[in-house]
């Protein structure tokens, strides 16, 4: 710059300005390229036609020359197909249903655990947190796999129930490859994600609040609903969103534990992609799933922003 004022006169200051620019720009550009751009592409491809080729779709973007051509080729065919086939609608609804029930079960099991952890003696708490996190460090796939051996008709659960005489020697537990197995898998896999935000919210709560409530004549169970629960709501929302959103698109659990009639959209997408090799349709499935999840994701982001 010709009119270098005193402000920009120092080359070292200039260098540090560059460094600051790089700190923001490098991760920013990376995420734009590998996270945002793919969403634009998925959206475009969902509007293009299936072709028997590799890649198995007619590319919609062949440089700027073909832009006019591209615009004329866009159509909503895939989306129309999705709405015409009740299977897809059922899959979406079933995903939402399973995610809702799973999240509710997670809250039901996770909240007492988080509360018990928050009420545990100070010296014990780090260990308890560690115990919740530990399974998370072991492979997700392995943990789901472990349940197959338990839930199979000739699996350990059957053996156990037969051994204690709860079941006849010829009876078997018919849970494996049903929705119940899926719920067990979901709750098992996502429990740490539910417990930790709840614990974080409950743990930082001032214990004297409950003492004050008790001092003012409020019985413990009432104090829970009037004080503890409302104050833990940010944790409830964060935990519910962290579980609900990925569960809606979950693939591994319904695939390994669910039955043929367990409809989940993640499984449908996988089948369209790997089984039927219909990439545009798979993209359309993904786009609609994303649209369904926009509201919960927005709630989650908002929550995070308030915490930060």
């Amino acid at each position, binding site marked *: 710059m010709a009119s270098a004022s005193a402000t920009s006169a120092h080359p*070292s200051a200039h*260098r*540090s300005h560059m*460094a600051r620019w*790089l*700190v*923001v720009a490098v*991760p*920013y550009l*990376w*995420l*734009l390229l*590998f*996270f945002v*751009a*793919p*969403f634009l*592409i998925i959206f475009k491809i969902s509007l293009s036609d299936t072709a028997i080729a590799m890649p198995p779709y007619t590319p919609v973007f062949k440089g700027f020359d073909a832009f006019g051509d591209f615009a004329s080729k866009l159509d909503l065919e895939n989306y129309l197909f999705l709405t015409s086939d009740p299977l897809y609608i059922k899959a979406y609804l079933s995903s939402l249903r399973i995610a809702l029930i799973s999240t509710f079960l997670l809250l039901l099991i996770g909240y007492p*655990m988080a509360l*018990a*952890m928050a009420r545990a003696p100070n010296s014990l708490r780090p260990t*308890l947190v560690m115990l*919740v996190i530990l*399974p998370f*460090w*072991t*492979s997700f*796939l*392995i*943990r789901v*796999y*472990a349940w*197959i*051996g*338990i839930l199979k008709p*000739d*699996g350990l659960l059957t*053996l156990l129930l037969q051994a204690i005489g709860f079941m006849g020697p010829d009876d078997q537990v018919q849970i494996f490859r049903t929705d119940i197995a899926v719920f067990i898998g979901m709750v098992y896999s996502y*429990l740490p994600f539910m417990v930790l935000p709840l614990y974080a919210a409950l743990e930082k709560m001032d214990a004297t609040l409950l003492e004050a409530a008790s001092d003012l004549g409020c019985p*413990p169970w009432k104090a829970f609903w009037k004080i503890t629960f409302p104050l833990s709501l940010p944790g409830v929302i964060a935990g519910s969103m962290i579980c609900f*959103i*990925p569960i809606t*698109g979950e*693939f*591994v659990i319904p695939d390994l534990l669910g039955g043929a009639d367990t409809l989940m959209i*993640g499984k449908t*997408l*996988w089948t369209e*992609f*790997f089984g039927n090799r219909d*990439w545009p349709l798979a*993209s359309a499935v*993904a786009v609609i*799933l994303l649209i369904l*999840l926009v509201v*919960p*994701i927005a709630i*989650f*982001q908002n929550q995070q*922003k308030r915490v930060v």
Partner: protein
Amino acid sequence: MKSSRFDATVLTLGFAFLYIPIVILVIYSFNASKLVTVWGGFSLNWYRTMWSNQGLMDAAWVTLRVGVLSATIGTVLGTLAALSLTRYQRFYGRTLFSGMIYAPLVMPEVITGLSMLLLFVALNVDRGFWTVTIAHTTFTMCYVAIVVQSRLMTFDRSLEEAALDLGCPPVKTFFKITLPLIFPAVLAGWMLAFTLSLDDLVIASFNTGPGATTLPIKIYSQVRLGVTPEINAICTILIGLVTIGVILASLTTKRTEMRRIRDEHDAARAEP
């Protein structure tokens, strides 16, 4: 007290639920019988077959390389992202940026995996080792960013100002003051990124190519064919590695804690 007995029961049942399946899995990896549910005596047989299973070993090696590489790049990028978010309150597109950090945490893997694949296809990149690595870097960097960000938020900025004030330029200040102090968080971020990479099936399945089959993909394809004790064996090894890592980490924390207590003791005695 009644509530403490209730709490103890809840925690016992909760942790039993979390750990029993894993324990069973480990026990049956030492089962001599091929039938998963029949106990045929103790045996290391499945570890031997696993070891001689070339496909499984190759997959493990690929997974390890992808994990180390993507965790390392992801840690660098995630740390930079955390710095941007905590240090620069205003820059163009900051809201989009923080959105891009938080969204991958909850985004269903099938969407992330598919969209990335389509990007690579659009860019005409052959799928394989590098596409899996890039895909893993992208989602793990967000986890690193969150971990490092929470450390940076409690970081005393006056330490950096003191270094600047004493004549240390900003970049050097970062390496001499900031990085050493946030290093535990950066390391934790790396460990998390590495674990997530080791663990991932869905995103890797979309973005893998010939010769880049990762361990979860391999395990998944075998699991679909039925439960085999060989898988139990490799799972046990993975669990063992993670447990050792966690124990080491907690020992380090304990030592740091002991040192802190000793320091406080010294400080109290140093009082004039």
